């Protein structure tokens, strides 16, 4: 007899859609308001450009990503275009190939109403090897007309190096934009960036609850607001606070993401970003299995966690809990350096395989998980780092693990039948059978 939990869609879902629409529209009219457009690799450190005033952020793949991902023909044209230009191998980083192809076809930087919107500058923090080269590649694509800046993510404890790079970036931004940098805006943004991470972690921590209040697919959807707005805005905090309050309510009232939850999964690594015929993260639902999260979702540029010696992830303290004052530029830059050197498992995990494995194992243990699915996207070395050793470490702890190889970008590489069969086999070996519908 399978237990049935109460379930419902998030009440704040319409707000999420509204915010996303608003952000998209704001991007299209940013120029009219004299606001900057900034292109970046991920959402961390968005407080730094915030000192120039409100700006709009092309994180990841640009404002047209959803349209491209929903259109196989367009996506394939982009990838083919990259191949023609010499980025010819399918084993290279998919997102970067897509970037190149979409830019060459003139559809990368379109606003939702189709207007071309070039960024004022590009900045990225180097986490993976692909990101390290990405900004340079984008600069080539813009015929060197868009300036770029790369911040190197150094290993701990190099706070001084990080601070000096941030300071140089500020000077550089003033020079390339001709705008005066305002420390008060940086200070406010830094506090927000820290708080955004803490709120996201608090939401993710509630996923320890049985039944899980949210599933991984919903978590990824919620992060789109952070991706699109950056972590520095007060609206992001207000939205995440709203989500947190609602998730607490779901926990208190045992409102589940999946009414039939009986088996909990981690799906580690990114799933395909294009629309697959198989809804990968929801596919296990027919077995009463729910993907409750992953390091990727809990930490991917958004979560701020304190990491204990054994890899345990605890929600990081707030700035005030740490007694850290952020009242000057120097203090703000130091806070950002500490945030990403010490409280970002994502960034730490890109520098240390050992730490990455510890975080994943503890996550499986502490979030009461039954089994783990790891995805090695063929074109993504950064995501794959430590995956094989993670599988060994999880198995040693008694967790069943399967490793898939789904490409995140290239639909030609996706085989729906194979993907489903692999999940069926894995879950059935664990003794699960499809539930009667």
């Amino acid at each position, binding site marked *: 007899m399978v237990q049935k939990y109460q379930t419902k869609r998030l009440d704040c879902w319409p707000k999420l859609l509204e915010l996303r629409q608003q952000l998209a529209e704001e991007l299209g009219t940013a120029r009219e308001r004299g606001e900057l457009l900034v292109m970046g690799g991920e959402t961390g450190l968005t407080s730094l450009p915030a000192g120039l005033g409100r700006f709009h952020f092309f994180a990841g793949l640009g404002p047209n990503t959803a349209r491209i991902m929903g259109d196989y023909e367009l996506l394939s044209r982009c990838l083919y275009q990259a191949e023609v*230009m*010499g*980025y*010819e*191998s399918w*084993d*290279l*980083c998919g997102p*970067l190939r897509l970037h190149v192809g979409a830019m060459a076809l003139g559809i990368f930087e379109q606003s939702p109403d189709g207007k071309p919107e070039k960024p004022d500058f590009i900045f990225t923090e*180097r986490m*993976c*090897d*692909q990101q*390290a*080269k990405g*900004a*340079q*590649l984008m*600069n*080539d694509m813009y015929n*060197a007309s868009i*300036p*770029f800046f*790369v*911040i*190197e993510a*150094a*290993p701990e404890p*190099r706070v*001084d*190096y990080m601070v*000096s*790079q941030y300071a*140089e970036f500020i000077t550089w931004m003033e020079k390339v934009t001709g705008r005066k940098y305002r420390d008060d805006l940086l200070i406010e943004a830094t506090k927000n960036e820290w708080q955004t991470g803490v709120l996201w972690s608090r939401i993710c921590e509630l996923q320890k609850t049985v039944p899980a209040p949210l599933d991984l697919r919903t978590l990824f959807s919620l992060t789109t607001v952070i991706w699109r707005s950056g972590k520095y805005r007060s609206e992001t905090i207000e939205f995440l606070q709203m989500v947190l309050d609602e998730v607490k309510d779901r926990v208190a009232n045992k409102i589940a993401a999946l009414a039939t939850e009986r088996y909990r999964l981690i799906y580690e690594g990114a799933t395909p970003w294009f629309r697959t015929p198989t809804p990968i993260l929801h596919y296990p639902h027919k077995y009463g299995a729910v993907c409750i999260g992953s390091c990727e979702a809990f930490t991917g540029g958004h979560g701020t966690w304190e990491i204990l010696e054994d890899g345990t992830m605890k929600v990081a303290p707030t700035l005030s809990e740490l007694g850290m004052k952020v009242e000057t530029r120097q203090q703000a830059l130091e806070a950002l350096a500490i945030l990403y050197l010490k409280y970002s498992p994502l960034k730490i995990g*890109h*520098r240390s*395989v*050992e730490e990455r494995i510890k975080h994943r194992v503890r996550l499986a243990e502490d979030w009461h998980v039954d089994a783990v699915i790891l995805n*090695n*996207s*063929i*074109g*993504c*070395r*950064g995501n*794959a*780092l*430590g*995956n*094989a*050793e993670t*599988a*060994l470490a999880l198995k040693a702890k008694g967790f069943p693990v399967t490793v898939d*190889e789904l490409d995140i970008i290239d639909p030609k590489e996706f085989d729906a039948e194979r993907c489903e069969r692999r999940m069926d086999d894995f879950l059935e070996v664990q003794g699960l059978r499809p539930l009667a519908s």
Partner: protein
Amino acid sequence: MVSAFDRLRQVIDDPHKYVEKWKDSTGRKAVGYLCTYVPEELLYAAGVLPVRVLSKAEHIDIVGKHIPGNYCAHSRGCLAQGLQGRYSYLDGLVDSHGCQQMLQTFYSWQKHRPLPFSHRVFVPQNRHHPQAANQLYQELVSFKSSLEEWTGEPVTEEALAAAIQVYNTNRRLIREIYELRKQDPPALSGSETFELVLSSMLMDKEEHSQLLSQVLKELSPKQGAGRTRVMLLGSVTQDIELYRLIESLGGDIVIDDDCVGTRYFWNEVALDGSSLAAIGSRYLDKPPCPLWDLSAKRERCSHVLKLAQEYQVQGAIFARLKFCDPHAYDIPAIQATLKDNDIPALVIETDITLARGQLRTRIEAFLEMLI
């Protein structure tokens, strides 16, 4: 009597035997390194022999449960060698904070076949940043302390200065050899030069320099028509077969931009001020790997073009190591630079083994086009 060249070839044929013998005769330690950004001078000054870890396809399948299949053949091949115990005589393993693929190799090796000493050296990739030199200096101080703690011996300023001298001499001698390749025909073929560079990565530099000096003395200008002059650009090309294949088709690699090539030895340590600072500058200034070339200047483009022009190459061959993104992303930009200067290029893909048949056809067609 064995010639100097043959002696170097013996080391390449069995580097393990050489290092084991070296350890027996000196009573000192040997450390493997995984990247050319590891400052070998410090190891040498600590009385330790730095040995380049080479990848091999031998039983590469054993790494499947440790390293993803979408990592490059070099990272997998090095780990395969480590896990099989081929380098069991090593006392330590050192890497730089370079690419993530070698980070995985370093971790898995140390996890499953731990060696007594291990270290990852942080060489800032944002190398033009005003703080980079200072950061590297601090890192070298820390690396030196780790070595001192491990060996129980201080690394003195004199030892560092001597190590710099030994390394600079070796680099200078290899540069001399490379100078000779500007001739037409070059005094040495590409494959012979490759052997000289590769052997320098495996041997005590002092001994290597003695042998190199002899090789230089024994060299005489070659007569006759030269072959088609080709530049090789690659990640870490360790397979001499590629050089030989090109030679068998009428080409000759007269210059390269590769980790088993110019990127390893091209620049010297400038002896001024503190030895550690001077060593640091050398590694920040060396011809960069793509991960140390992140600025809009794209220094690799101008550096490669300069080499190509100085060595009067007729064409360039990019040996793109499968799954090596950083190099792959540089190829179109460098290729465009070469094309703008009328230097045609061919991109071939290399993996665990060379697809000789297919490569033969493509390279042959490319060389014919250059004549």
